[in-house]
């Protein structure tokens, strides 16, 4: 399957014809609608809230935010002028901004209750121009997103990573910005698999990211943190006898000349020495 990300930068790819095609295709409309509903389900907002829609495009996802129950107010941001023109034609309810998420979001701290982004953040990994570093763009985006969400806020970003490397790059950028992060995968192992990056900003209710999906049906939780913790425990601490023996064994296997082990290996020298 060809990826639009591989062709052109987003502001050029979504030109007038492409934007119109995107918005009128009923297949895309359906997919976008179901993903937005899923994102809303994950956000679990009980009161009418102010939501940021990153990469709002022609407002397909925004429509669902304003039509839902409770009806939310949203501010949309997109880099493609043509997409926003289509959104204006469709008279969406949200306020629209033309902006590049990779340059950081121009909002002051604690603005939004929540943020969603449907099929957008993989564009950040593009290296379209010289001197554009995806890592800087990712960290600028996530840092500013973290700042503009209020405490206890949540963000759900559905995205299409090219491969695992890109997926991990995005996740680690989010964690570095301070988010509690989790990945939800719908329809895994199929062609229609959808990845949702669920992000939480500290606060009482959000201590554990797995809490987001606790009350949902059909969700299996794989906790990577426990595995990492166990791995760190299993490794010998630097400087201990076990660690020295491991190092020696490794060097021996490489064929280096290593002193044979004795009862003195790894012992401290006597003070008198």
């Amino acid at each position, binding site marked *: 399957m060809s990826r639009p990300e591989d062709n052109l930068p987003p502001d050029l790819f979504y030109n007038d014809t492409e934007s119109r095609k995107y918005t009128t295709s009923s297949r895309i409309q359906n997919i976008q609608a179901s993903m937005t509903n899923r994102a809303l389900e994950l956000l679990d907002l*009980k*009161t*009418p*809230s*102010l939501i940021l829609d990153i990469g709002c495009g022609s407002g397909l996802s925004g429509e669902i935010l304003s039509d839902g*129950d*409770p*009806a*939310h*107010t949203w*501010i949309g*941001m997109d*880099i493609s002028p043509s997409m*926003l023109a289509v959104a*204006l034609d469709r008279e969406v*309810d949200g*306020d*629209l*901004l*033309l*902006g*590049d998420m990779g*340059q*950081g*979001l*121009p*909002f*002051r701290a*604690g*603005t939004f*209750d929540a943020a969603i982004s449907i099929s957008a953040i993989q564009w950040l990994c593009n290296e379209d121009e010289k*001197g554009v570093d995806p890592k800087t763009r990712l960290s*600028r985006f996530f840092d500013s997103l973290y700042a*503009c969400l*209020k405490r206890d806020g949540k963000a759900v970003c559905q995205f299409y990573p090219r491969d695992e490397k890109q997926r991990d790059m995005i996740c680690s950028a989010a964690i570095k910005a301070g988010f509690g992060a989790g990945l939800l995968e719908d329809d895994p192992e199929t062609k229609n698999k959808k990845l949702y990056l669920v992000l939480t900003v500290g606060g009482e209710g959000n201590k554990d990211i797995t809490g987001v999906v606790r009350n949902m049906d059909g969700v299996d939780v794989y906790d990577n943190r426990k595995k990492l913790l166990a791995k760190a425990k299993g490794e010998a601490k630097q400087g201990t006898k076990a660690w020295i023996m491991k190092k020696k064994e490794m060097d021996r296997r490489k064929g280096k000349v290593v002193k044979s082990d004795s009862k003195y290996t790894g012992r401290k020298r006597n003070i008198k020495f």
Partner: protein
Amino acid sequence: MKLLTANFISCAVKACKSSSLSFPLHFKDVELASTSVPYNPLLLSNLLPRLDWPALVTSSKELGFTLPDTKPELPRLTATAAATGDGDMNMDNTVGEDDEKTLKMLHKVLMETEVVEGKMVCGSCGFEYGIHQTVGNFLLPSHLV
């Protein structure tokens, strides 16, 4: 660009992040329009603590209308209070007449007033963000990022 949005936007230029002058952005050469938006008192009371009132007063002055100097105080509405109205937000039992008036005023200013054409200028670096057909342009040239 609604006034609500303008109250949350500050200059995106990196050098302005630490400057207090970069918020609020000042309106220039504006053309206003009024749109009708469904009234949502619950959202407004939810938003009120987050609004920067002095900034809102400044921007509304620039657009030609006046607001009280101090932030109006409202009891925080809860979802249960609204639920009694069963969807159509019948708030008469819970919100006093004065509060209702304040909410309506806020709704008019924040939600229904829209800047169609114009500019927003940063008070710190002087960068002008254009607003065209209600859409604000926040793309920065790469040397300012």
